[in-house]
C-alpha cells in the first residue's frame, strides 16, 4: 500500500471536534492556552458558546472538566501530552477516572513529535502513566483519518478517554471510509512469519518494513494497535499463535507502553517472543523528529533487521 500526503494527527482532531460540536451542543472544548497549537482554533471560532479556556492551569482544567461532566457535558480537555498526562495526572485519576466521568483528554505533541521543543515537551511516558489508571481508555491514532474516526468513537463512548496526537506531520495511511473500533486492532497486512504491532506515528514505519521484508521473502503481519488500553488481547493471541515472533514499535518509552502491554499478553500465554522497539528509556533533545526516532532505533531498517534476527531458522 502507498502512503499518502503528510499531515499531523492533531489536525484530524481539530477537524473532527468541530463536526462533533455542531452535532451535539454538549460537546465542549476546554483549553489551557495552547488551543491554537492543539488545533482548536476552528472550534473556538465556529462554536464560541461551547468553547472554554481556563488559562495555563492544567490541574484546574481537568477539575473544571470533571465538574462539567457531572452536569451532562462532554468536555474535551485539550493540551500537550506531557502536561495532560503528568501535570493533570492526579486530577484525572481522582476526579475523572475514579468517578468514571465522561471527559476526554485530547493531547497533541505525543511522543517525540514536538521534536524541536526538546525533552520538556516530548511525552514518552504518558500512555504508560494513563494505562495504569483504572477506568481509562488510551488511544493513539496512526494518521489523520483514523484520528478523526477515533475522536468520534471516543465522543460516542461514555467514559474517560486519553487521546494522543502527533505534532509533526505523518503520512496518511487510511482513506475516509475506513472504520475503527476502540479496543480492536486494525490489521493492515497479513503474514505468518512475524507480526509487527505498532501504533501512532510508527505504524507507517511498520508498513514500510513489512513491504521491504516481503521483497526479501518474509511475510509480516502488521497491526495498528491504536488502543493501548484496553489492549486487543485476541489480536495479540492470534499474532503469537500464527507468527510466534512479535516486534512492537512505538513512539513511547519501551517501559510500560504498547510493547509492555503486548508482552504481558504473550507472557501469560507462555508462548512467543516479543521484541520491543521504542524510546530507549532516555530523555530526548531538540533535534529533527526522524533523527530522534533513529537514535532510539525506531526506523524501518531496524525493524527489518530485528525481523531477520527473529525469523532466522
Amino acid at each position, binding site marked *: 500500500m502507498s502512503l499518502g500526503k503528510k499531515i499531523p494527527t492533531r489536525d484530524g482532531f481539530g477537524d473532527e471536534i468541530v463536526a462533533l460540536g455542531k452535532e451535539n451542543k454538549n460537546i*465542549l472544548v476546554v483549553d489551557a492556552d495552547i488551543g491554537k497549537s492543539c488545533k482548536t482554533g476552528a472550534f473556538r471560532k465556529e462554536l464560541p*458558546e*461551547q468553547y*472554554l479556556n*481556563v*488559562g495555563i*492551569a492544567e*490541574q*484546574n*482544567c*481537568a*477539575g*473544571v*472538566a*470533571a*465538574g*462539567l*461532566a*457531572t*452536569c*451532562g*457535558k462532554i*468536555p474535551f480537555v485539550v493540551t500537550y501530552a506531557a502536561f495532560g498526562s503528568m501535570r493533570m495526572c*492526579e*486530577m484525572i485519576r*481522582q*476526579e475523572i477516572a*475514579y*468517578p*468514571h466521568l465522561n471527559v476526554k483528554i485530547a493531547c497533541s505533541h505525543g511522543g517525540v513529535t514536538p521534536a524541536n521543543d526538546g525533552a520538556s515537551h516530548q511525552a514518552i511516558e504518558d500512555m504508560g502513566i494513563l494505562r495504569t489508571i483504572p477506568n481509562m481508555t488510551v488511544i493513539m491514532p496512526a494518521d489523520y483519518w483514523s484520528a478523526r474516526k477515533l475522536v468520534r468513537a471516543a465522543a460516542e463512548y461514555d467514559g474517560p478517554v486519553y487521546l494522543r496526537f502527533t505534532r509533526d506531520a505523518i503520512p496518511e495511511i487510511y482513506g475516509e471510509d475506513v472504520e475503527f473500533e476502540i479496543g480492536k486492532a486494525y490489521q493492515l497486512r497479513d503474514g505468518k512469519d512475524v507480526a509487527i504491532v505498532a501504533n501512532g506515528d510508527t505504524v507507517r514505519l511498520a508498513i514500510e518494513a513489512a513491504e521491504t521484508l516481503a521483497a526479501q521473502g518474509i511475510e509480516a503481519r502488521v497491526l495498528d494497535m491504536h488502543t493501548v488500553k484496553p489492549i486487543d488481547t485476541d489480536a495479540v493471541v492470534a499474532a503469537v499463535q500464527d507468527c510466534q515472533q512479535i516486534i512492537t514499535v512505538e513512539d513511547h518509552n519501551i517501559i510500560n507502553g504498547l510493547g509492555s502491554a503486548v508482552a504481558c499478553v504473550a507472557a501469560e500465554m507462555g508462548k512467543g517472543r516479543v521484541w520491543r522497539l521504542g524510546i530507549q528509556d532516555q530523555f530526548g533533545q531538540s533535534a529533527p523528529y526522524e533523527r530522534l526516532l533513529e537514535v532510539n532505533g525506531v526506523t524501518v531498517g531496524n525493524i527489518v533487521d530485528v525481523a531477520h534476527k527473529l525469523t532466522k531458522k
Partner: protein
Amino acid sequence: MSSMKENLSIVELQNKCIDLKKNAISMIYKAQSGHPGGSLSVAEFVTACYWHAMDVDPQNPRWADRDRFVLSKGHVCPAQYAALAMKGYFPMEVLDTLRKEGSPLQGHPSMTKCPGIDISTGSLGQGLACAAGMALAAKLDNKSYNVFCAVGDGECNEGEIWEACGTAYKYKLDNLVVFVDWNNLQLDGTCEEIMPPISLAKKFEAFGFEVYEINGNDMAEVVDALDKALASKNGLPKCIVGKTVKGKGVSFMENQCGWHGVAPNDEQYRQAMEELDAQYVK
C-alpha cells in the same frame, strides 16, 4: 419541579446541627477511624446548606436542576454523610458502615458509591475546580442552580485552589459559594506554623470574589452570609471565610491538632455525646 427547600428557624437549625455532630462522631467512634475535628468545625455550614440554602431532592439525588454540594476537604465526610442520612438519601443505619468494606460511605466521598455525593473528593485542593465546572455548566445551560463548596484553610496551600478561582471569576460564577473552614489547624500544626495563610479573605477578594467574613460556627451568621451570597447576582463568585474552631462542641477536641484524624475511645465518646446533648437549645 418545584423547590424542595426547607424553612427552619435558627434554633431548629442549631438543634439539627447538634444531631448532625452527634451522628458524625458516632460514625467515627463505631468505625474507630475518621476525622472528627474538621467534621465538627464545618458542621454549621453543612447544616445551613442542607436545611436552609440548598434545593435538593433526596428521593431524586441526580435531579438535573438541584443545587450541588462539593466537599473539597473530603476527609470531613462524616459531616456530609450524617446530613445525607438525616435528609433521607439513605437509611440512618448505613452510617454505621463508615469505612467498612463494601460500604457506600468510603473514607473519602465517592459519587459512584454514595447517593447525594456530587463529586468524588479526598485529594485536597481539587474540589473547587470541580465546583467551578458545575457552576459553569449551569451558566452554559441557563439554569439557576447554585453550587456550594467547602474548602479547608490548610487546603488553600494547594495551587489548584487559586487556579480554580481564576475560572470562577472569568466565567462570572455568581452561582458558586465557597466556604473556607478557617479552623486554623492543619494535620501537622497551626496554619501559621505550616504555611502562613496571610489573609485568606484578602486573597479571595484579590481573586475577584465577593467575600463575607463571619464566625463560621454561629448558625445565624452562616445563614445570613448564605442568604446574602445567594441574593447577590452581580457576576462575582462568593466566598464565606468562616472563622471556626476545630472540634467545635466537644471540649477536649476543640483546637486540638491531635483530633484531626483520631477516633474517640469509649469514655471519650460518652463524654462527647453528653456535652453535645447539653447544647440543644430549648
